[in-house]
Structures are given as C-alpha cells and as structure tokens.
C-alpha cells in the first residue's frame, strides 16, 4: 500500500476566500454566521447562515463560464485553483492520466433548481435557459475541475448528505493508496442558501434561529453555511521526489452505516467509524490529540457524538481535544468535512486547535474538552475528522503530521 499526503489546500467559505484567511478566523474564533441575504428571505422562519457575502463571480469567471457554472461549481473552482497552485503540480503531461477528482456535494446546483422552478412555477414562463441541466447536475463541479486542470483519470461525485466530503476524501485516499492514481483533487462544495434550500430544512425543526452552539447546554440547532474546500491528495513518494511541501499525511479512513433511522444518529455507528479509522491508520486512541467533531449544535448529534468518543477513546477521552468549527462557518452539508479538514491540518502543522465558539454553558452529556470559545496551542501528532450524515452514514478520516 502506498502512503498518501496532502500537498495543496484551497477554500472559500463564510469566513474567508482562501486558506490563510480561514485559518486566521479559526485562530481568532471569529463567527461568519449572520443574516441571510437573498430573494424572499423574509418568508423564512430561519434567516441566518454562514453565507459567502458580496460574492462577485464576474471577478473570477468569464461570461461563457458563468452561464454554465452554478454557485457550487464556482466555489469548487476557486478552492481548487488555490489548492493546485499550492501543490505546484502541473497535470498537462502524463500526470493528467494518473490524476482524478472525487468531490462531495449533497445538493449540487440547488440555486439553479430554485431559480428555474421560480421561473416556470411562480412566473409562469414556459422556457428556461438551455444549460439548466449541466449547471445543476451533482457531478458538474467535478467535471469542470477535470476540464480546468486536465485530469483524465477517475472523476466522480459522491453524495451522502452531511458526510459527502468525508466519503469523497476517503475514496480519494483509497485510490492513491491502492496505486490507482498519483494525485486526486478532492473535497466538497455546497450552496443551498436560497429560499427553497432553507425552506426545505425548516420543516425538520432542527435549525437554530439565532446561533450554532455545539456542545453548549443551551444549543438549539444547526445553522447552514456555504462554500467549498478542495485538497490535493498525492502519492507520498511522488510528492517527496519532487520536493513538495507536505501539509499532512492521510493515514486512515473508515465508513459505517447505522442501518437504523433516516435522521436520528446512532452512537454505535459513529463509534464503529471512529474505531475503524483508528485501526486503518494504525493509531491507538491515546495517540490522537484532536478530533474535529461533526458537532452540528443539535441536541441529538452532539450528545450522541460525545458518547461515541467516550466509548472509543475510553480513558483517553479525558485528554483528547474535540471541537466543532461549524459555529464559525456554519454547516456546509456536503462540503462541510472538507472545510473542517482545514482545522485538522492547522492542528497538525501549526499546533493551533480551533475552538468551539458560542459555547455558553457546559453540557453534562458532552463532558469532553471541547476547546470552548478560545483557540489553544498544542502539539498533536494525529487527528480524526468526523462526519455523520442523515441516512445514518458515517465517515471518519485519520490524519498524521507530515512525515
């Protein structure tokens, strides 16, 4: 089996439009959640989110590109450009045939669906733009990355709700580990902050009207975000040979299914995924210094996740730091694991643990070190990143510091 490392990272989210800005926000514990701004927002009962403000796609894309790129594709391309530039890779030659793309998204081109349904149902028009289908399809972003960077190997999208990005990155990891690819662009993107996107979520009554407060006793629900993060996963020897800067090593991955309930999480399913990732990485629980939690800020997730950590880590659960950065950037649904992997890289590289902001009161049912409100300096050698999706699908990545 081949070793897999990360040699490039890029993002755009409510906190910043690049990785340095996002990491700075993590260090400062800054909140990117605020009032949503889009058409018909006044008809929603939930009016806050982690929105990318003043988004001006004309700054990044020409007219022909804009007619074919939904916002989730625009976010993906922006993040990928930053990641590929950092990696220093050029896929124009033979490498393009040994490189691919695996991305996660839950909704794909939700804004495109929303705008065009409005056109035909609300405005009563009988014609929509001819590119509606290629804009909204879930694989659009992956395909546009392949075209922009000449990636001619395996290219596809996985969609597992809130675990999409982690499933995608796990797949990319396994493809390089198996020798199928030398490099894979991977991560995820989501952009469902629009009237229909939020209206659909309201019905479940799990969203907060005021703030995302993971692990805090007074938490009252999740808050959505939008954006993307893309990473260059690369064969370690390939990266080492060209003297690339290595951000971290992807050491293990596991996925499980609860086979239980379509929305309620299961401690056992989450615990099996964490234990599986540790086993796959050859890590003992006490070697893990930090867990990036799924930490949605719902009553059900946070309690179940903490119980699962306690079960898997045993005595080491009292020493491991666990935080949820969703209180800062919101829940990016299918893109969330990708943005959150940045906090894992920051912990391993910079020795800074991103805080769980909005933490007002400890919850006895979440009795772990949740790094409340203020970032912390700490040396960690290995980390986990959790994602637990609706549908009972769990995906956990294990990372080690760069070799």
């Amino acid at each position, binding site marked *: 089996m081949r070793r897999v490392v990360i040699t490039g990272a890029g993002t755009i989210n409510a906190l910043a439009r690049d990785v340095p800005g996002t990491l700075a926000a993590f260090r400062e514990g800054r909140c990117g959640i605020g009032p949503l701004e889009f058409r018909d927002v006044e008809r929603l009962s939930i009016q806050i989110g982690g929105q990318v403000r003043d988004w001006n796609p004309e700054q990044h894309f020409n007219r022909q590109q804009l007619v074919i790129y939904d916002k989730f594709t625009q976010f993906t391309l922006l993040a990928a450009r930053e990641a590929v530039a950092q990696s220093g890779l050029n896929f124009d030659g033979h490498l393009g045939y040994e490189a691919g793309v695996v991305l996660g998204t839950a909704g794909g081109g939700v804004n495109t669906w929303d705008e065009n349904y409005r056109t035909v149902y609300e405005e009563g028009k009988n014609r929509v733009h001819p590119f509606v289908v290629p804009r909204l399809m879930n694989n659009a972003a992956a395909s546009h990355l392949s075209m922009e960077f000449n990636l001619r190997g395996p290219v596809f999208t996985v969609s597992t709700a809130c675990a999409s990005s982690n499933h995608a990155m796990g797949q990319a990891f396994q493809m390089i580990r198996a020798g199928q690819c030398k490099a894979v662009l991977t991560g995820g993107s989501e952009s469902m902050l629009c009237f229909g996107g939020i209206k659909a979520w309201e019905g*479940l009554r799990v969203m907060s009207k005021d703030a995302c407060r993971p692990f805090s006793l007074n938490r009252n629900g999740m808050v959505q975000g939008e954006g993307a993060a893309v990473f260059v996963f690369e064969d370690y020897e390939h990266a080492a040979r060209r003297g690339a800067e290595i951000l971290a090593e992807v050491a293990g991955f596991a996925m499980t299914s609860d086979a239980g309930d379509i929305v309620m999480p299961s401690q056992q399913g989450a615990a099996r995924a964490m234990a599986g990732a540790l086993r796959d990485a050859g890590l003992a629980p006490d070697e893990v210094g930090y867990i990036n939690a799924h930490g949605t800020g719902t009553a059900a997730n946070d309690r179940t996740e903490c119980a699962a950590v306690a079960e898997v880590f045993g005595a080491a659960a009292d020493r491991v730091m666990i935080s949820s950065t969703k209180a800062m950037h919101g829940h990016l649904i299918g893109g969330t694991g990708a943005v959150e992997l940045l906090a894992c890289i920051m912990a391993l590289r910079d020795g800074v643990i991103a805080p769980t902001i909005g933490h007002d009161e400890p919850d006895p049912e979440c009795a772990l070190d949740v790094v409340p409100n203020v970032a912390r300096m700490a040396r960690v050698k290995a980390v986990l990143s959790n994602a637990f999706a609706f549908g009972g699908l769990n995906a956990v990545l294990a990372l080690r510091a760069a070799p």
Partner: protein
Amino acid sequence: MTQNVTERVIAILADQAMMDPAAIRLEDTLADLGLDSLGLVESLFALEEAFDISVPFNANEPAKSDFDLSSVAAIIAAVEGLVAEARAA
C-alpha cells in the same frame, strides 16, 4: 368549534399513528401513540396545514416550546389557542 378542533386533531394524530381515531384517548402521549421524532414533525406539519397556523416548536429544545405536546388533550388545547390567536390577528 371546540368539538370540531378536538375531532380534527384526533383524526390527524390517528392518521399519523395509523390508529382508529376511536382508540385514541385524550390522556395519551405521543409515545403512547407510537409517534417518533419524524412522526412528531409530520404531525405538526399536518396540524399547521389543517388549521392554517404556525406551531412554534424546535426539536432541539422541546421543553422550551410554548406548544404543549405532553398529551393529546394538551395538543388540542394548544391548537385551540393558536387558532384563536390567528382569528384575533
């Protein structure tokens, strides 16, 4: 009207619980009716649609809700309150 609200609420809960309305007692809890979290949000949706009301309920903090869900009788009273509010508005 009260009788009407009672019958309609019971009919909605019976439909969600897949029970005969006659088998539902006013003191039953949602758990007694076998309604889980999804059954609950679906019932609230059905009540909102039937009575043209908006039920304030966040699944993360059920205790903080003004809408009393502790029994069938409580739900009927809460719906009556919201219907009266809507009529007054």
